[in-house]
């Protein structure tokens, strides 16, 4: 690998030059949302300044231009995750909406009382609650595959949960609270051996590694743009064409129809069938710009750089007495979730903030994970490709100082 262009990358993110409480910003809350490069900001400004109109309408020039850019972004997403067709790329508001769409449009019409859905013990609320709602509607039962204290899926126990009643496996590719990267190829193989489809929640994984949905073989893959350096308000549902074809629309409205009379409506084909109403046009085009940006750097290069960062941060953290790392899976992405003896995560968060360091303190929308470890909350530093060893040093110095202050 050639040298990772960290200085150039940092210069591309204007917000990294900000001062927070008179200190240089150290942004370590990337698992919640990533910052945006100038290319994405410029893309949004450019769209609204020069190429904005509604899409898939009218013959006028601007609408045609906007439609081209919009569908161009869909092709960029397709190529980025190596889907077979742009028909398999549905734009939604975020990973959360994508999961809700699958629950309501794939699950609700066909899952019955006594059927089972398997998730894991490390899921984000977005991959728990939509299934609970579906279970309430249909009588389907939610099964939870357990994990170890290290935060690794107990694969044998997971496999034992798969049976003739299992209608879907929905599992995270990478845990937002622990950093665990799940063995998704093995998970898909085990489920498919029993003809069970698999949804992978890629919200955390997508900015950290190269994802090939055909190689993974998953049936659904969901992610959000805002965690991939793109605009918020946009997400992607990938679904295998045959599955999407068979699913009824999720919402009704404009853009998702072929023909409407008061008697009946003929729905549009894929993917428009699932895209009722005017979408987040400029944001979706901005997601395309974000994909261009990370692709130019190379997902493999990003993954390698972040792995080295995490390793360094973990080594440093392990040297701090009273610091407990929550989530120590062998295969992990750039997340360092931790607690400090006798110091509440919210105090850690406020204290570090006064030093310009942004971390997350709380339950990370994964309350069952907190319950599993018997903590009300954790502090979480999460890394992105623009973070540096120097920033990790600032974080560690901050942690040492606040331990001293609390005494």
């Amino acid at each position, binding site marked *: 690998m050639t040298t990772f262009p960290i200085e150039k990358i940092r210069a591309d993110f204007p917000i990294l030059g900000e001062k927070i*409480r*008179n200190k240089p910003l150290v942004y370590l809350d990337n698992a919640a949302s990533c910052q945006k490069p100038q290319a994405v900001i410029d893309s949004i400004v450019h769209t609204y300044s020069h190429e904005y109109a509604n899409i898939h309408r009218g013959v006028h020039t601007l609408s045609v231009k906007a439609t081209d850019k919009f569908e161009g972004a869909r092709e960029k997403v397709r190529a980025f995750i190596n889907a077979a067709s742009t028909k398999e790329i549905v734009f939604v508001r975020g990973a959360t909406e994508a999961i809700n769409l699958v629950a309501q449009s794939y699950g609700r019409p066909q899952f019955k009382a006594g059927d089972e859905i398997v998730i894991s013990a490390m899921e984000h609320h977005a991959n728990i609650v939509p299934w609970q709602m579906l279970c309430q509607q249909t009588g389907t039962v939610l099964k939870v595959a357990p994990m170890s204290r290290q935060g690794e899926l107990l694969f044998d126990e997971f496999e034992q949960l798969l049976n003739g009643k299992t209608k879907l496996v929905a599992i995270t590719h990478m845990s937002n609270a622990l950093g665990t990267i799940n063995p998704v190829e093995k998970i898909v193989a085990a489920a498919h051996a029993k003809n069970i489809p698999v949804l992978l929640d890629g919200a955390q994984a997508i900015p950290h590694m190269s994802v090939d949905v055909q190689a993974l073989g998953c049936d659904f893959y969901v992610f959000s743009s805002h965690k991939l350096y793109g605009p918020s308000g946009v997400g992607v549902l990938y679904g295998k064409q045959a599955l999407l074809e068979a699913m009824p629309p999720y919402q009704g409205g404009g853009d998702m129809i072929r023909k409407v009379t008061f008697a009946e409506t003929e729905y549009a084909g894929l993917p428009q069938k699932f895209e009722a109403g005017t979408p987040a046009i400029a944001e979706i085009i901005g997601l395309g710009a974000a994909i261009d940006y990370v692709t130019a750097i190379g997902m493999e290069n990003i993954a390698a750089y972040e792995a080295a960062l995490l390793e360094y941060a973990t080594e440093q953290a392990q040297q701090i007495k009273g610091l407990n790392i929550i989530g120590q899976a062998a295969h992990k992405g750039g997340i360092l979730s931790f607690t400090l003896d006798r*110091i*509440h*995560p*919210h*105090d850690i968060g*406020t*204290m570090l903030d*006064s*030093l310009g360091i942004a971390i997350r*303190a*709380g*339950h990370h929308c994964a309350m069952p994970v*907190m319950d599993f470890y018997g*903590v*009300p*909350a954790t502090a979480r530093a999460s890394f992105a490709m623009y973070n540096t060893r120097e920033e990790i040093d600032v974080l560690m110095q*901050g942690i040492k*100082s*606040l331990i001293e*202050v*609390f*005494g």
Partner: protein
Amino acid sequence: MFEDLRDLYQEVIFDHNRNPRNFRVMENANRQVEGFNPLCGDRLTLYLKIDDHVISDASFQGSGCAISTASVSLMTEIVKGKTEAEADALFKQFHEMTTGKSEEINLEAIGKLAVLAGVREYPARVKCATLAWHTLDAALKNEAQSISTE
């Protein structure tokens, strides 16, 4: 380091966080309410003994951040011996102080609690300081077994 935080984390707060006062289960309590802050997971149980409208004893159990622990510790100290009406008045003054509604803090009335005035500059932390008092409010009204700061 942490110079900017001196208004929020005063020495009194560290002291009460390290050594919370009245931190015990009260066997003969006649009011007991659980307070919960779902955002940060802070959870406390407040015990009161009220005789003839006077709070003769107050104690708590639970875990939370330094701000919430110091707040409930200070509160149990200050309400002891107060009438229910006096405690309710304190709740209202404390609430105004921490949410920044009253510019002037009535130091005489609020006393030691003034060390928590700093949270008004940290909107994300106001609920940490007020959890104890909302729990007290529920205990005084004697309506609910548990409250949650949504």
